[in-house]
Structures are given as structure tokens and as C-alpha cells.
């Protein structure tokens, strides 16, 4: 176990903020333990000699998938803008309502 693998509380707070998660006090302690357990496990990866290896980003992608850069309001599947906006927790006509930003 290296010290680098252990997530300190402060680090956890920074990470939680980046992940847009607000953690409650008791949650924080439980998660810190679980996070540390996993990070510690991840350190075994340092045993592997990866010098000559290129990273794999996708298991099986044969070619780059391209499409025309076209503006397309209508999707190819059976739905429409209204069906999607209707699923918002709060809306006003065609707009989704959120708390004041300014």
C-alpha cells in the first residue's frame, strides 16, 4: 500500500465537488473507506510492464464512424421535442424551469 493510493478526506471533498455530489457527514466516512479500498486494489496495476503497449479505448471498433454534418431537427426514432420536454421535472410551455441562476 502506498500513501498515494489512500484518498484523504480533503481529496475526497475535491473529487466530490468535481463529481457534483454533495456528501453528508456519515456518507463521507463510509465512502472514504470504500474508495480507499478500491484505490489500494488499483495499485496492483503498477506491477505490469506496460511500456510497449498502446492503450485500448474500445474493444472492437473497426473504423471511425462518420456522418454528414447536417442540422436535423427530427430524429429518426419515434419521438419529438414535446415528448422529451414533457419529461422535465418542471416546465413552462416549451421551456424547462430551473432555480434562478443570477
Amino acid at each position, binding site marked *: 500500500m502506498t500513501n498515494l493510493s489512500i484518498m484523504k478526506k480533503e481529496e475526497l471533498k475535491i473529487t466530490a465537488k468535481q463529481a457534483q455530489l454533495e456528501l453528508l457527514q456519515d456518507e463521507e466516512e463510509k465512502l472514504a473507506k470504500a474508495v480507499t479500498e478500491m*484505490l489500494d486494489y488499483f495499485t496492483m496495476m503498477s506491477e505490469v510492464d506496460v511500456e510497449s503497449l498502446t492503450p485500448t479505448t474500445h474493444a472492437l471498433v473497426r473504423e471511425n464512424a462518420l456522418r454528414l454534418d447536417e442540422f436535423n431537427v427530427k430524429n429518426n426514432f419515434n419521438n419529438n421535442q414535446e415528448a422529451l420536454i414533457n419529461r422535465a421535472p418542471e416546465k413552462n410551455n416549451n421551456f424547462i424551469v430551473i432555480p434562478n441562476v443570477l
Partner: protein
Amino acid sequence: MTEIKDWKVYLSKVKEINKEVGAFLFIEETPPESLKTGALKNIAFGVKDNIAVEDMQLTCGSKMLEGFTSPYSATAVQKLLEAGAVCIGKTNMDEFGMGSSTDNSALGVTNNPWNTEYVSGGSSGGSAAAVAAGMVPFALGTDTGGSVRQPASFCGVYGLKPTYGVVSRFGLVAYASSLEVCGILGNSIDTTRSVFEIIKGKDKMDQTSIDYFPVNSEAKTIAILGGDLGLSKEVETAYKKAADAFRKKGYSIIEVSLPMLDYGIAAYYTIAMAEASANLARYNGVRYGHRSKDASNFEDLVQKSRDEGFGPEVKLRILLGTYVLRSGFQDRYYTRAQKIRTAVGNEFAQAFNIADIIMLPTFPIQAFKHGNSSLSQFQQKVADKFTVAANLAGLPALSVPISVENGLPVGMQLMGPHFSEERLFKAGESLSDILPLAICPKKMEEY
């Protein structure tokens, strides 16, 4: 697969047995009209609740999406509906596919139909339980690191994780996009194969979907792992039974070693959590899903909605994923994991030079009891050793029920090169006379 003649009677039987098994989170109320045409006409199926079915709920087993209904159907679902099959409901799962027991569902408990004190596995535990209990002949699941195969093994059914990209992911709620596939839990190889033939194929709605280039040659050589694999006594027994059965069928059995398997778990979780942290950023309480009632400003709204909507395992994975992607840590974790991913793929490619199929245990133990006391969340992750490799390398893998030991089923996983699904089906079929499929004691009466 049996055609449903009386939908009303059938649905009431499904609802009755679901009280004990809890495979489904939602069951269709209205009996559908009988169809006259289609390869799967009047065949019922279930769909894991992270795959979209038009106008049905799509919760991912999370409070975050409780009450959300999908405005469209996933491509795989659409193809089945066009073949005449009828989706009767949505099956339970670990929240957002994160877990190995379905106990991480925020919306319901699923019991193993073989013994209701035990879990059905996960994350597609609802789909596996539904098939094992005879509620449906097949159900769709998703497999990111073993989530179709492990519950299939726990419940004594067949579980196919297809080659990556062969089945469209359109309409599948994203967790770890580079690893996950839509898979099948089936009551026989025939059923699993028929469904696979229907749902596979390139889809313009999924840019990572690919054309199919089938490997037609049948297997002659099957590789197994030697040495101490850390298996339970029961799983060890089943592994030997399967190898013996293949020998009797004329296959040649060889031993290989796959030293990268252990590192594969660490690489898998690094990559899966990194991708999860990005994919789950969309749940912010704005456009859909849970919205906190106590928020005073926008930032507060996002944080509180996420804190209230996600369960502990999901938060853990988002946090870890965010951490390994932070600047300064990427090389140590994420990039290294991607390189190990390459090494895992290379190791399997080499093994396939000398063997046509590699047979691994699906999971080192049988189904465990409900609650974290029998196997902690951390131990569950480490136990994914045999399943995650197929996701890292994009390989097809089929979990085949082998035997029942101490009252619970055990499955073995057949893995082949890309596009070798038919080879796996044929090998699995060849075992059926020596190791016939055991019938679950809690099975819905015929309909």
C-alpha cells in the same frame, strides 16, 4: 418457446409468482392482442429496466429515474417487437447496472427462484430470475463486466454476452460505453440463438455497432485453466464435470494459463468507473429524473438531486471514476488500465491460436445469501475475475448451466474469438445429453 394463447390468464400467473421472486419491477396490465405473423409471434419476453421500451418505465433500478417512462424503444427491443414478440414488463437490476446481486436496486428485491433466501446475481438478476422461474422464455439484459453471465450462472439459465458492437446499444442507458453490450438470458440454446439472430446487426443509431462476420468453424479444442483458481468446492466440481463432458464428446481439452486475469479486474473497474463518472453526469435534476425539492440555486439543485437520487454504490463509482480521471492521476490509473486492457486482449488472442474455445468458471462461487454479510461489495468486485476479460477484449461469451450442487445451479462460461457466437452455441448444445438442463423447483405452471 411457447406461444401465449390466453394473455389474461398468463399475465395473472406471472403476477402471482412475481410476488415470491420479484423478478419484475413492472408487469404490463393490459393483455396484448394476439398476433398472426412473425418468427416470435405471441412469445412473451422481459426487458431489463435499463433498456428502453416505448411508454414503459425506464428506472435503471434507481430513485433517480423512478417514474420516468421512455418515449421510444431500444433497437434490440424494436426488432423483437417487429418479429411478433411481446414485452410483458421490466426486470429488476442493481442500480445503473452496478452490482452482482440485484440487492443494489433501490426499487425492489429479487430472489433466486432456486432458493428465495439467495440472490439471483446481478446486475441483470431480474431477467435471470424471470427466465429461471419460467415466467418468460427469454429476457434482455446488459453485460458490462459479467452482468448477464453471472446471474445466468446463479439461476441456472443460459446467458449470452455477444461480441462488442454486434447488438445495437441504442436505447440502452449508458454506464460504461466501451465495455457494455446488450445480452440475452434464455431457457435454452435454441431460444438464445433465435433471439440473437434477430437482435444482431449494424444500426445507424449506434455508431459503435458493426457488421457481423461470423466465424463458422466448429470447435475441436477447448482450453481450461489449471492450478488453484480460488473456486468454491461446488464450482470446482462443476468445472471438472464440464471438462469431462467435453472430453466424452470428443473435444480435446488443453490447459492454458491467463496471468492477466487478476490485473484485468483492476483495469476493468478503473475504466468502468471512469466511463460511469462521465455517463452519469447527465443526471442533474434538470431535464428528467429526480429533482431535489430543497434547492435554492442551480448548483445546489444539481448536487442535492444527485445526492438524493443515487445510491451508495453508484456514488462510490462516480467518485472513483472522477478521481482516476483527475489531472495528475490519469497516467497512473486510466491510461495504465487501458494498456492492461490491450495486454488482456493480446493474451486471449494468443490462447485462441491453440484453442477454439476457452472455458472459464462464470463466477468463483454459487449464489450467495441476501445482504452484504456473506460477500462484501468489494469481494463481489474481485470475484468478477473470470467475466470482465470478455468485456475488456470485446469477446463473445456464453454461460451454460452445468450442474446443480447443493441445491443451487452452477454455470460455466464458454469464450471464443470475435463473432464466434455460433461456435459457442454448438459447443453448449453438445453437452445437453450428458449434462441435461436442471429444472428450477419454483417454476411457473405451464401456460
